């Protein structure tokens, strides 16, 4: 068994128009920037993959990462909890112009819907959003005297994940708060593609320390010098500042 792919382009080659794509990360922490920017480049050259549904907590910042996808026009719909950021222009302009659909999901519900998708649980009940606009049209049930909202699982065609360490069997560890949604998304997609800062031999990751077991992972690419979204944002902001 060897899930290692030689390069980013090969690993993401079969992402197609109209797919549902989960992208790991919370803000910049855990964002697989090299995968995202490779998709943007491909879209700009070939016009594909377009009409994507992107599932992430946020909707990008500045013109980096998911914001670059939105800005390029390849995203039809965002499923997220918090589409605001320090520089939310890419999302805000397209959303207010009616060119981008939004499914707003409470953050904990988003996490649990993805977990349920990966765990084979079609629906569950949560107290979150009860009595609010976000519960409209959803079944309500009472348990132990309290009202709960039924939410459904969320699955995807592809998950794009950034990990710290991977082996050829697909076992993963993450770095600090870059873990966030990634272990859940890895379970919930038909095809889970990972960019790892370091690829090691099987056994080098202590089984006690594996966070995502390899069964949830299909492809691994080593991206040793991966950029951090926040660092990229700050450097592009300071360059823009120097010009103006």
């Amino acid at each position, binding site marked *: 068994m060897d899930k290692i792919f030689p390069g980013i382009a090969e690993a993401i080659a079969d992402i197609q128009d109209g797919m549902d794509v989960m992208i790991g990360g919370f803000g910049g922490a855990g964002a697989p920037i090299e995968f995202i920017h490779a998709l943007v480049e491909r879209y700009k050259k070939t016009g594909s993959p377009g009409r994507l549904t992107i599932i992430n907590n946020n909707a990008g910042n500045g013109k980096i990462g998911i914001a670059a996808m939105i800005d390029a026009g390849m995203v039809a719909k965002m499923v997220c*909890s918090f589409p605001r950021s320090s520089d939310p222009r890419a999302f805000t302009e397209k959303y207010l112009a009616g060119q981008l659909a939004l499914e707003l999901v409470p953050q*904990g519900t988003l996490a649990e819907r993805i977990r349920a998708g990966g765990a084979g649980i079609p629906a569950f009940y949560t*107290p979150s959003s009860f009595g*609010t606009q976000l519960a409209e049209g959803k079944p309500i049930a009472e348990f132990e005297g309290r009202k709960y909202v039924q939410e459904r699982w969320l699955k995807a065609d592809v998950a794009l994940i950034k990990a710290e360490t991977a082996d050829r069997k697909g076992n993963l560890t993450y770095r*600090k708060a870059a*873990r966030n949604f990634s272990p859940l998304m890895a379970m919930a997609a038909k095809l889970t593609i990972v960019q790892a800062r370091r690829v090691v031999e099987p056994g080098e990751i202590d089984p006690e320390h594996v966070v995502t077991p390899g069964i949830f992972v299909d492809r691994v690419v080593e991206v040793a010098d991966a950029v951090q979204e926040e660092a990229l944002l700050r450097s592009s902001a300071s360059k823009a500042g120097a010009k103006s």
Partner: protein
Amino acid sequence: MSAKLSNAQIAWRAAQDLPDGAYVNLGIGFPEMIAKFKPDGREVIYHTENGILDFGEAPPAGQEDWDLINAGKKAVTANPGAAFFHHADSFSMVRGGHLDIAVLGAYEVAENGDIANWSTGPGSVPAVGGAMDLVHGAKQIWVVTDHVTKDGKPKLLKHCRLPLTGVGCVTTVFTSLAVVDIKNGRFVLREKLPSISVEELQAVTEATLVVGDKVGDLVVPNV
């Protein structure tokens, strides 16, 4: 009635009520300030939605690790004994009733404990984050807010007018003029600025304030 507390002073006042040993989630922005004013000698463990328990202050400028951030995407540090976990575990801590206190900002709070803090209605970009989960998870829900809106209208209302974040969940409101507990669907005045009368406070509060025998003085240092 010109005297009122600054946001930092409201944060200071809320911090005085943090009990030793509490697990606490501070909302992004204004509520984050509370951590700065925690009384010495109390150990409080802070939770952030994006998967850290027991994070500490911001690192010095230039030493940020952008994989170590809070829910507001600000750089933080990890205290000795910190833990990292994924989002489903993080919100199990929230909805599972394991957090003692969550502190949020608000556009409006109603006397029955309803809160509106995520949407100002059509034409704006709605963003809910973890607020709808937090308001139904933590044992106590505190709100820190100015007592009135920028144009002087009450924020403590009979009923919220903006889209709700949660129903009947707020337990205490720390404002620029008062500390108000919500008990049995009423605003119960616990403390007020000594420089204003109950009548003046009621005039900028839409719902009726229940005033008991003992209303404390809201006295806060210049912080």
